[in-house]
């Protein structure tokens, strides 16, 4: 029964199919080429016909100047057909291009449409002359637009002026390029662009960039005899460089995405709805420093290019575990690091300005590292940090803060020597590390001591050299002043050093002092000179005690640049690294919180302890922070809850 039923059904379908096919076939044979011919063939046929027409009308090339005598100007239908066949669908599919003549003209004006002959240099037009007789002509593009804009589409002329070479930089800066993470809003933004009269002028920039890139790749492969093409490529490259210079990176990226995907909302929106921070950095939505320092470290380069950043982003995206082991080489910090996925989640919500790369493992007093980070955030400082100067940067920042506040006792680090003249001990303040411009940097202080005590020249410059690099046999080390140390075994407290001047070891130098100070006030008498008070006074900062997660959330919502800092026991903050073996054991660890990430299983805080890499924040539950700060409060002399939001 079922079989009979199915067969009957199939038979009916088959009948319909056969009938349909039969009709189509009969139609095809009845109409000739067109119905069943491939598009390729059609295009080829048209190209031939167009070329014939073009050749014929080329004899009638005109320069029309008497605009007032001309009327009823319109483009030849074959010319339009050629535009339809040979231009990218993305622009022609726009509704405004189909309905708005002026918009259509602006597409031609900005080289967004093409004919069978490629880029439009001349247009085939028809018009009525002063005698009202129909005429046809081939006119240059420039002439055509002079003619058209004298009669209609006056707005186009004005917009063209805004986007000419003289004004394009200023115009682009004034145009709003909106971005959103919400899909519906993003679709709305694209729809606005599709009907915006500026769009063809903006997309000219994108097309120029594309042509320029194409030309850069191919110009070297051109035969030397192909002058015309070479000249064209050179022009394209020149245009690309012009726009690179005058249009900022974010706008260029935005424009490129807009114009490549002008008719595809999904593709246009995908990069803004992208969740990973690496993509956002590449498209200019997030600052480059969130990735550039890590990338520089991984690729072992002093300067990195966009190509390097793209390679790093791809690596981080495809290999999440890569970030746990890479990114802090020679910039000593807690190891292993975080995986790329959780790092991306954290950096997405992070607000701490980190345009530098410090080395916490080389600074023993973690409070100095934390203050260095807070200072860099407040002052938005940028530095080309390196393993050679990272320790100096942090120490100098802290020392300077105290010297400016007339609190010299917070920086007791000195190099002492026996003055050969007076036979008395003399001590000079120094900051560990090398820096040519700072008088207090270790290398300059040692040079000064050698000048005073060892008869060295006042122009003598001391160099800090890793013991693995130092070799007295080599010519470069035979004369001069060298401070030799083992970089792998060097921090504030412990850094065995040898000072050698003209191959002779200087033995009577003594390094003394360790920087001890109150981070938060430990007593009422010394409250003024606690580090947080000095920061607040110097930079006019306000602070607020943070007691719970609601407080913290509200603080971040209220103050967009505010961050939170505090001290907690490392055994509670990082229990996987540190273990308690005694009652009331606590390793006080300063930290910074600069964001909140909402996940399905709760809220996580963007957390950076002062012993971890500054570019590797971790996601931490509030409960662990609460426990850690509570444990430290138990031991604090004033029983203070040391967790504060701070802002300028």
């Amino acid at each position, binding site marked *: 029964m079922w079989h009979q039923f199915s067969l009957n059904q199939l038979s009916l379908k088959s009948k319909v199919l056969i009938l349909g096919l039969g009709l189509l076939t009969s139609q095809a044979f009845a109409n000739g080429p067109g119905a069943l011919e491939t598009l390729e063939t059609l295009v080829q046929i048209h190209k031939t016909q167009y070329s014939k027409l073009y050749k014929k009308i080329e004899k009638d090339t005109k320069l029309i100047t008497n605009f007032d005598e001309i009327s009823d100007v319109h483009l030849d239908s074959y010319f339009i057909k050629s535009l339809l066949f040979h231009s990218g669908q993305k622009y022609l599919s726009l509704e405004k291009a189909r309905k708005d003549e002026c918009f259509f003209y602006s597409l031609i004006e900005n080289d967004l449409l093409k004919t069978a002959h490629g880029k439009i240099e001349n247009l085939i037009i028809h018009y009525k002359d002063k005698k009202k007789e129909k005429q046809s002509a081939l006119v240059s593009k420039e002439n055509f637009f002079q003619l058209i804009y004298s009669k209609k589409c006056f707005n186009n002329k004005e917009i063209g002026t805004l986007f000419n070479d003289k004004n394009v930089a200023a115009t682009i800066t004034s145009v709003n390029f909106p971005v959103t993470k919400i899909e519906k809003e993003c679709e709305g933004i694209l729809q606005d662009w599709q009907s915006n009269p500026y769009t063809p002028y903006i997309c000219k920039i994108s097309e120029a960039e594309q042509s320029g890139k194409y030309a850069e790749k191919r110009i070297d492969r051109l035969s030397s005899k192909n002058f015309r093409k070479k000249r064209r490529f050179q022009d394209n490259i020149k245009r690309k460089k012009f726009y690179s210079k005058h249009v900022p990176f974010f706008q260029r990226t935005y424009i490129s995405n807009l114009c490549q995907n002008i008719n595809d909302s999904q593709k246009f929106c995908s990069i803004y709805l992208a969740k990973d921070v690496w993509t956002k950095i590449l498209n200019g939505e997030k600052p480059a420093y969130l990735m550039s320092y890590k990338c520089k470290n991984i690729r072992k380069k002093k300067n990195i290019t966009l190509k390097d950043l793209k390679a790093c982003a791809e690596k981080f995206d495809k290999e999440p575990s890569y970030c746990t082991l890479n990114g802090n080489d020679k910039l000593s910090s807690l190891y*292993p690091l975080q995986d790329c996925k959780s790092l991306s989640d954290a950096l997405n919500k992070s607000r701490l300005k980190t345009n530098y790369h410090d080395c916490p493992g080389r600074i023993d007093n973690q409070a100095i590292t934390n203050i260095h980070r807070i200072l860099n955030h407040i002052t938005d400082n940028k530095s080309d940090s390196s393993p050679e100067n990272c320790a100096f940067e942090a120490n100098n920042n802290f020392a300077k803060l105290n010297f400016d506040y007339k609190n010299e006792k917070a920086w007791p680090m000195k190099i002492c020597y026996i003055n050969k003249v007076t036979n008395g001990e003399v001590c000079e303040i120094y900051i560990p590390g090398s820096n040519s411009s700072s008088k207090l940097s270790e290398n300059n202080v040692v040079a000064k001591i050698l000048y005073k005590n060892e008869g060295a020249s006042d122009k003598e410059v001391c160099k800090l050299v890793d013991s693995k690099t130092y070799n007295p046999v080599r010519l470069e080390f035979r004369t001069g002043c060298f401070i030799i140390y083992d970089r792998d075994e060097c921090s504030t407290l412990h850094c065995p050093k040898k000072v050698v001047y003209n191959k002779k070891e200087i033995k009577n130098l003594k390094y003394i002092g360790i*920087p001890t100070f*109150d981070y938060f006030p430990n007593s009422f008498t010394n409250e003024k000179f606690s580090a947080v008070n000095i920061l607040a006074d110097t930079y006019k900062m306000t602070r607020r005690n943070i007691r719970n997660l609601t407080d913290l959330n509200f603080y971040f919502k209220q103050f967009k640049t505010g961050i939170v800092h505090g001290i907690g026991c490392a055994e509670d903050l990082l229990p996987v690294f540190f273990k308690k073996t005694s009652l*009331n054991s606590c390793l006080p660890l*300063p930290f910074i919180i600069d964001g909140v990430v909402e996940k399905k299983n709760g809220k996580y805080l963007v957390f950076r302890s002062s012993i971890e890499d500054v570019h590797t924040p971790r996601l931490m539950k509030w409960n*662990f922070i609460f426990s850690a700060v509570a444990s430290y409060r138990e*031991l604090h002399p004033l029983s203070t809850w040391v967790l504060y939001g701070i802002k300028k």
Partner: protein
Amino acid sequence: MASKNNSVILFLLMLAMSIVKTSALVYEKKKELPEMATKQAINNLRFISKDGKYTYYQRRSGSLLLSTNYKVQEVLKGKLGSQYLVSSTHARKKLVITQDENFHNFFAIRKPLKIYVSDFGSLSPRYIAAGTSPRLHMDDNWISWFNPQAKVINFLNLRNSALGFEIRLATKKNPYFIPEVIMSSDNLIYYTDLNSKGIPGLIEYDRKNKKVKAILKANAATQKIELCLYNDKLYIAEFAMDSAATGTTITMAKRYDIDAGKRKILYESSKNDLGNLVCSINESNIYFIKNTTNKDKNILNYEAVQLNTVTKTIKPLSNVKYATQIINMDGRLILPYREKLYVLLGDHNLASIDQLDNKKEVKK
């Protein structure tokens, strides 16, 4: 009529059952962990012996004090705000005391502390050296400590101070790495180290023959190895530190014959437990912080648990959700959590112990 009665009875039965169940739940919720009760403020406490006879506590003035038999005497004096830590082993012969005179104004995880050793109840601790992570070994006859800057583990015989040696670590990757150290015998030492890629390993140092041998290597740099020795059992635990490397393995080996391949597996888990192993309380159990996150809810949860080394069963000991550390204080297992000290094993009411002693004294 009968069916109507039956329905009523059934309804009442169901109601009764739900009340009982709710009560049970309520009872369970209300069951709290025993808090340590002492005469001293708990934030001043540093050590209480098993029998409660000796209590070490510190004062803001910088002194470490010993209270015993209602007498309070100063053990060590330091600068204002000095921080002390006191620990012991199950041998119960010596105490290790560390003194940090810059606890509140120099925050450095690697800073060297003054290390002292003292007999139980003694008022004359002996200064040993400056360093971190001091440990007693071999029936409290040896002490080891770590110098994190030089990356050297130092050993000193407490009976004969002329006997001492050191082991230099290879680690360069993690400046905050703290090695696990076990003395299996006077000549055989087990410790953890990191290789050039930061991958932890268990190393055997034969002091007599001056030979170093790698016993075990972790799978990834995102793992840690913990060691714990109790009598003739050496517990070796591998914990993952990151979602990239997952899982925990706790094994047991013989103290005098550690063969990585012949270890007995006591516990395995696919979740990343925190670790912080404690093993020297009793013969058949070890304790650590376990990841008890519910798979469905996926909300992070950590609790202190007991692992029976014979039956290999796990028993939860805490219910605080975010436990991070457990401490063995002379046989008492303590969970420090948010300004409170919960006693998971052992007597928690220590306020009354001294009184009993006093009564005995008076009777005498």
